[in-house]
């Protein structure tokens, strides 16, 4: 076995037979690269599509030692691929480009590339790339010194842990933690606890959707500042998960959050400046598309299709409509059916949907593998921007409560656009049963009903409310990158119904009204698309655009509650900003708080940033409500993120 050989002959024959995955859309370059690599005696696999590459990598994490990828590719940005690979598989990635601008190279470094080569590539440069693999391996081995066979799959433990796809590779990327410490490519912090390093074999943990959800929930509960791996681990209560696993995951999460917050902050400023112009709906629609992907988990083509359509069409609309998205499978997954979820009271139904949703998602453990979701979620929270996606001013009529989709059930309430709802729910579901307060759902519902035109509710809209809907799995989902949902939930707080739910979520919301979905970065591909879809400063919630975006805020209004939140999604400079603009006063019945938060989702460079923006009278009756809002936002964002991520992952 190669691994064994590697272990035994440190550097002797290692470079020989090293398995490289080469990705480049240009066939000439790809052929050249392949030949060069073969000449270096590596074992080369090539593909011209990043999506295919990801698929291959995900199929078997042990299959490759190194990835070389072009920067400019039509189906996915090379940097995004780079990040994903780094996060999910922890493989060294080398970037390749004809463009050697310092800026680009810098970006490569930021995204975690272990090297950046210029085209045309020379064989001499390729002859040394094995060093990156060895470097990682060395660290692994060091830690693993006492643990016996290195290539023994850690399947057992991982399986026991109930993780999705455990990477039982005994190869280089054994210890994520080690790698994290060692290869701090994409990690700014190296705060790993290595305590248990030598105590046990640490399987490569695959952060499945479920797991990630739990993680996020735990972190939310503790508060991002106070979240320490040990406590998180306790809260998560997952067997065979070590603190180190959590620690490394947390590290990544924080990284994302950081990234997102930068973006979010910028967006926030922008958003503030922009004001909540009409309907900036969260481009949940896009999310929906994404979400759908999640549920779809299975059909790659769907994802791809949706993904692509997202990309190309730039019309969230497409995404919103499950049909458009091509997510035929949605209905089956119950995603679309959010509408049935109607009442908040139907949490169970909704949950069921979520459940069903999640199930397919399980296959895609990868969906949430990236931290992004949690990150995003966190971002949302941290950005406290009133992630208040929920309230969409009834002004905008169109509506579709994108959020609703999330809350699925919520949307049912009013919108017949279940698809949207469904989508959202799905997304939510995917995220993990976000336990968005049902309140949210109900809120949406109400709002939804208020808008008859919501037929097209984009799933997007549901996203926001959906989060609330995810009542069932409250804790989980909340943490999940459903920042969006959170917001939705929060926003909907006005809805008396399960307002408590948001409250509960509050803990993890820790006053982060602004859900900056910066962390939605993970969404990467999707988000990027989202961003593209969004017009600059155009309210994403262009209901009229056919988004079928249900404005949860508007929905709310119908209830007579002064929810006038409009999430506005603004795409600016590649940022998808969802900024719910609140018009009027959002009065969460249960809490008696007036939230005027608008979550804004900003997608920047593929990041979905949701920054709740509060306009109008925001009366933070209690911090809790604010937090709720934040959580709602966060949820929503996370949902969006997750959706995007999911999609991204799926594809």
């Amino acid at each position, binding site marked *: 076995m190669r691994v064994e050989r590697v272990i035994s002959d440190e550097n002797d024959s290692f470079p020989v037979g090293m398995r490289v995955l080469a990705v480049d859309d240009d066939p*000439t370059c790809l*052929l*050249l690269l392949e030949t060069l690599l073969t000449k270096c005696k590596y074992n080369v696999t090539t593909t011209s599509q990043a999506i295919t590459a990801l698929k291959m990598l995900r199929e078997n994490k042990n299959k490759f030692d190194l990835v070389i990828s072009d920067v400019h590719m039509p189906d996915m940005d090379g940097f995004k691929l780079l990040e994903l690979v780094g996060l999910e598989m922890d493989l060294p990635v080398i970037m390749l*480009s004809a463009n050697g601008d310092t800026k680009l190279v810098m970006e490569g470094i930021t995204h975690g590339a272990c090297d950046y080569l210029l085209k045309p590539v020379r*064989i001499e440069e390729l002859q040394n790339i094995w060093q990156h693999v060895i470097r990682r391996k060395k660290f692994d081995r060091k830690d693993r010194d006492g643990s016996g066979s290195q290539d023994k799959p850690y399947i057992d433990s991982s399986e026991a842990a109930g993780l999705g796809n455990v990477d039982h590779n005994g190869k280089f990327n054994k210890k994520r933690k080690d790698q994290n410490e060692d290869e701090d490519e994409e990690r700014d912090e190296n705060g790993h606890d290595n305590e248990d390093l030598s105590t046990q074999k640490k399987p490569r943990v695959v952060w499945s959707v479920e797991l990630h959800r739990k993680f996020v929930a735990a972190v939310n509960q503790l508060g991002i500042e106070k979240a320490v791996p040990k406590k998180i681990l306790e809260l998560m209560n997952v067997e065979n998960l070590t603190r180190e696993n959590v620690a490394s995951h947390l590290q990544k999460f924080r990284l994302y959050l950081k990234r997102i917050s930068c973006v979010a902050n910028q967006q926030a400023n922008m958003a503030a400046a922009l004001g909540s112009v009409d309907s900036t709906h969260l481009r949940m629609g896009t999310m929906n598309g994404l979400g759908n992907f999640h549920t779809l988990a299975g059909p790659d083509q769907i994802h791809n299709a949706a993904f692509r359509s997202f990309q190309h069409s730039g019309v969230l609309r497409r995404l919103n409509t499950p049909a458009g998205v091509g997510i035929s499978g949605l209905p089956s997954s119950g995603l679309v059916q959010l509408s049935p979820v109607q009442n908040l009271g139907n949490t169970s139904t909704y949950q069921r949907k979520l459940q069903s949703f999640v199930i397919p998602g399980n296959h895609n453990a990868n969906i949430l593998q990236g931290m992004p979701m949690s990150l995003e979620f966190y971002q949302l929270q941290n950005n406290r921007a009133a992630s208040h996606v929920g309230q969409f001013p009834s002004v905008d009529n169109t509506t579709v409560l994108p959020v609703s989709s999330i809350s699925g059930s919520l949307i049912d309430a009013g919108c017949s656009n279940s698809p949207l709802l469904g989508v959202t729910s799905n997304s939510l579901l995917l995220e993990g049963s976000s336990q968005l307060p049902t309140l949210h759902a109900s809120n949406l519902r109400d709002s939804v009903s208020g808008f008859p035109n919501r037929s097209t509710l984009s799933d997007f809209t549901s996203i926001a409310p959906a989060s609330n809907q995810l009542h069932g799995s409250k804790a989980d989902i909340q943490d999940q990158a459903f920042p969006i949902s959170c917001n939705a939930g929060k926003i909907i707080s006005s809805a008396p119904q399960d307002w408590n739910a948001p409250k509960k979520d509050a803990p993890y919301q820790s006053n982060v009204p602004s859900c900056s979905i910066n962390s939605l970065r993970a969404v990467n591909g999707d988000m990027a698309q989202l961003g593209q879809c969004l017009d600059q400063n155009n309210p994403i919630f262009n209901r009229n655009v056919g988004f079928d975006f249900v404005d949860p805020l508007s929905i709310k209004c119908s209830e007579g509650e002064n929810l006038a939140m409009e999430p506005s999604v603004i795409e600016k400079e590649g940022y998808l900003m969802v900024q719910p603009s609140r018009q009027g006063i959002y009065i969460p019945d249960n809490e008696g708080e007036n939230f005027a938060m608008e979550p804004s989702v900003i997608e920047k460079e593929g990041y979905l940033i949701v920054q709740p923006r509060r306009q109008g009278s925001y009366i933070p009756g209690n911090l809790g409500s604010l937090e709720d809002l934040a959580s709602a936002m966060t949820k929503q964002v996370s949902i969006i993120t997750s959706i995007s991520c999911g999609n991204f992952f799926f594809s």
Partner: protein
Amino acid sequence: MERNPIRRQLAIMRQSLFDQGHVDEQFVQLEELQDDANPNFVEEVVTLYYRDSARIILNIEQALERKPFDFRKLDAYMHQFKGSSSSIGAKKVKAESTLFRECCKSGNGEGCMRSFQQLKKEYATLRKKFGAYFQLARQAGPVETASRPK
């Protein structure tokens, strides 16, 4: 050093490609990759290049027909084109692509058009030369690569 007249001629042709600046060092890299396991590698790559780049050329042409010019898109296309051209060592073509991109960056539509015309010329010229070269190479039969100008 070439005993065979065909080979000799091949060597001359090859040298002229370099001397006239049509190809650069990268072409040598291609040649070096050609071996027994891969006897027609250079021709394969060049053929692939012409096949694939034709598509890009077409895209650029179409883009140039739409006014006003979408410089960003044009630049993106050209970037791609430049990447593959440099991979096979097409020196003049690559230089012209760089010029084209400069024009895009500065929004010089006229310059783009002119540059593109020139680029197409170089592109076509090189293709002809390659065509003749490979034809002769096939005639010469599999042989170790000729001496390279080092």
